[in-house]
């Protein structure tokens, strides 16, 4: 959290993720990808490749059918997709 350039942060709840890849498809920065690691249900869950480019737009979380993504954004950036 010390880097100034970083605008957002996401966390993937790997036990909830089913590896459908909808988040990978919609990420404008292309920071997400499906990994080669399995969770306990046997799904290849989604993985963050380069977190530093995350803008915190929350589109991945909006599109996740299983609510497996949590998003944080720097509070001084205007605009909130939630309301």
């Amino acid at each position, binding site marked *: 959290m010390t880097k100034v350039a970083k605008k957002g942060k996401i966390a993937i709840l790997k036990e909830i993720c*089913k590896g*459908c890849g909808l988040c990978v498809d*919609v990420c404008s920065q292309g920071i997400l990808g499906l990994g080669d690691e399995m969770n306990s249900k046997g799904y290849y869950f989604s993985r963050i490749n380069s977190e530093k480019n995350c803008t*915190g737009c929350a589109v991945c979380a*909006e*599109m996740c*059918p299983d609510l497996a993504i949590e998003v*944080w*954004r720097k509070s001084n950036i205007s605009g909130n997709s939630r309301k």
Partner: protein
Amino acid sequence: MKKVFERPKSLKDTPSHFCPGCHSGLIHRLVAEAIDYFKIQERTIGVASVGCSVFLYNYLDVDVIEAPHGRAPAVCTGIKRVRKQNIVFTIQGDGDLAAIGTSEIIHTANRGENITVIFINNAVYGMTGGQMAPTTLLGQRTTTSPYGRDVQQEGYPVRMVELLSGLEGSAFIARAAVNKPANLMKAKKLIRRAFEMQINNMGFSMVEVLSACPTNWGLKPLEANRRVEEEMIPCFPLGVFKEKIQGSEDSRG
């Protein structure tokens, strides 16, 4: 940093049983967000229909009654008539609403019952293994139409939204999709509007939401998502088909 996305309060913290890439999870979340938005969690009663949508009671933190197959609108009618102060809604699939429950939905809409129906249309019977549904697209292969749906044998896909918007009793009828972020935002607004219609006593409201069914379509989640865009939306156009204005002569509000 501030958390900008979290689980709606009225959605229980339970992993869903839906297949990877199924849009039902998204639609349940949109309903939960609408319930949170109007702060009606305490007075909302859900009716679980039969199909993949049956586990409504596991996911939404509201009171839920389960209805027999196709009869969710009839059960909603009963609840709403005796408990007018409650908000009553159901989530139905296409096998439930458009096949076995056609009679119930048509008459409920025609009577203008003040309830909200969220109709998940994935063009196939999801839970029972991918049989042909009334909404199956022409040429679509299912387990009971292995050569593709043929007009001569099975007829045309039923467009429930167009059908119900022709009835005088219905107040708000719309169709949305959740295949991409822009459509998802529109769907969120339409579902919210449907609940608002009920809160304002305007009468019957229904939102049809197009959904992918990767498992029964035999496609990968992203391919199924693309199919919604390329094949379903041209057959089932999106938009608001009917909306009564509050205070007008034919509204109850």
